[in-house]
């Protein structure tokens, strides 16, 4: 498969803001939130890579770094073989046309004072692709396609006049209007109702095939990730702990954290209730993460070696990598 995106050794540290009291009494020594800690992966053309993890795992930051909505601390980002992590804003603009984003909350990603039609056609004007009647026609066609019908009628509406499912469609249409190749979808359905979620997921799947899109699908919901993605990367405290094809990761999870996550996913079937208790504890702070493997304090299989040194991602089966030093830490299903 041809590679579209490659990220190597991506790092993002956020300086911790200090109050006046801290400065007076705790002296110098800037602390950092290690949001993304040396992350590498690639996404093939037409592929859907799921980036899954709990809140604070760094998955959204990774998505934003990729689009350069945030500037990285270190590492490189390649788009179609070209390093876009060092190019200027003007040059980046050309790439922005091909790289779009859909955020979690459609209501806060739409201007309340911009009509639906203007919101969708605005990117065309910004990128100088078309304007006036032509832009309007393009927007209307796309609105029909994503199910915003009757398009002529909805074109003049404002976001507050639409339902939750419709606003999410507006955001999708706006992301697709410049004919992008790559879309970062950051929890696009997390705020939606159950029945709306299914519609948006189905639509995203159809649009992917129709527009030959490549997705980075950021989610905390593994069941959704399994439904939409080809490959999955599991993040924990800024690091990818496991990455591989959907089938491999879900059927033969290697990393104990992946296993814990999978066990914790509720199953919509009372006959298949979870029997084992899940690991206790919560994701620690990314300011002073645990030494060695970040998961070791919560890991039921941890040995002394886990406390020192970052475990490298190693290939446990073809194309399936895990950052766990244990041979078979988890019972295979």
């Amino acid at each position, binding site marked *: 498969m041809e590679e579209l995106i490659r990220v190597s050794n991506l790092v993002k540290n956020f300086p911790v803001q200090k109050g006046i009291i801290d400065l007076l009494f705790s002296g110098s020594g800037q602390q950092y939130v290690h949001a993304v800690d040396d992350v590498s992966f690639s996404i093939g053309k037409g592929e859907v890579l799921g980036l899954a993890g709990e809140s604070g795992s760094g998955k959204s930051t990774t998505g934003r770094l990729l689009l350069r909505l945030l500037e990285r601390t270190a590492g490189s980002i390649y788009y179609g073989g070209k390093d876009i992590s060092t190019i200027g804003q003007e040059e980046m603009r050309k790439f922005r046309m091909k790289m779009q984003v859909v955020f979690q909350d459609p209501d806060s990603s739409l201007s309340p004072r911009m009509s639906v039609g203007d919101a969708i056609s605005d990117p065309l004007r910004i990128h100088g692709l078309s304007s006036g009647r032509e832009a309007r026609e393009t927007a209307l066609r796309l609105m029909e396609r994503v199910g915003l019908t009757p398009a002529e009628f909805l074109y003049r509406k404002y976001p507050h006049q639409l339902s939750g499912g419709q606003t999410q469609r507006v955001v999708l249409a706006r992301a697709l209007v410049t004919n992008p190749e790559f879309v970062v979808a950051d929890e696009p359905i997390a705020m939606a109702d*159950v029945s709306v979620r299914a519609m948006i997921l189905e639509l995203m799947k159809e649009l992917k095939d129709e527009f030959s899109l490549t997705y980075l699908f950021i989610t905390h919901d593994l069941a959704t990730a399994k439904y939409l993605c080809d490959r999955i990367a599991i993040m924990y405290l800024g690091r990818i702990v496991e990455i591989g094809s959907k089938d491999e990761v879900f059927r033969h999870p290697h990393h104990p954290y992946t296993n814990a996550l999978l066990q914790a996913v509720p199953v919509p079937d009372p006959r298949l209730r979870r029997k084992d208790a899940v690991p206790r504890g919560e994701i620690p702070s990314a300011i002073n993460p645990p030494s060695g493997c970040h998961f070791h304090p919560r890991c039921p299989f941890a040995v002394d070696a886990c406390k020192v040194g970052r475990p490298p991602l190693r290939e446990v089966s073809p194309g399936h990598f895990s950052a766990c030093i244990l041979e078979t830490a988890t019972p295979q299903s």
Partner: protein
Amino acid sequence: MSTGVGEPILEVKNLFIDYPITIGTVKAVRDVSFTLNKGDVLGLVGESGCGKSTLGLSFLKLLRPPGKVSSGSIEFEGRDIMSMGTEELRLLRGAQIAMVFQNPLTSLDPLLKLRDHFFETLRVHNAYISRSAAEKRAGDVLEQLGIERERLNEYPHQLSGGMRQRIMIGLGLILNPSILIADEPTTSLDVIVEAGFVDLLKSLKEQYEISIILISHNLAMVAEIANRIAVMYGGRLAEIGTAEQIFAEPLHPYTQGLIGCVPNINADQDFLISMPGSPPDLVTPPAGCPFAARCPKVMEKCAVAPPPLREYRPGQQAACWLYE
């Protein structure tokens, strides 16, 4: 309290709840009837705006004005909650029926230590309880929830999200109520923390012999713990039955759609069922079945009158003209 598992403890009959507003009346709950038995974990599921939270609040007579029960009755152990006076309600709330809300950060006072939260709750129901006795009791409850008793000296902001939610449960349980109502208790939690919370609820249910009403939009989470499930749509009960019945043989087309549109990690799904359209406007609800406009099996009759909730299989009731 250990006796009588399976006996009715909360009976709701033909309940209607209205919110009069400037442009009309929001008909939030329409003709809801069901019985909660001792030892039940009832999952009350539905999408936003279906009336599930309003219904939960009414069990404690906590509806915020102008919201009011316009007809019907709610009986707790045979006593009508709607006709209770202030003093009776004070004794009911917390001690008999406790409620745990969605967002612990807005329910806990940021300026009070946890010990004070517990002390206050205990003192409202027992004016003579000493601080030391209250703290002993609070510490015991915390330990059951997997939190060290030393943390009673901390403030809410010092706890993690999962711990705050467990504190909320602790505050709910400290007076030993017979019913615990939890409104979207896991919405703000991560999946592993949520699973831990579900485990906790299961063990508490055994220890406290408590009946639980779990209000949630998360069908999969409810499937992990509820023995009975009530599905609400547009202010009405669409279906109620055992968890197995609801998931394996749902009767109502809305329940069928709802289950078909949830991604299941154990299944290889090629597609999810889509339910086009959106829930009805409850100011001017349709005359017939609220789901008629979105229903794939809609008939002429459905637009005329709302179908009654009837038992079509033992223990399973549905409100649908298909089965009449």
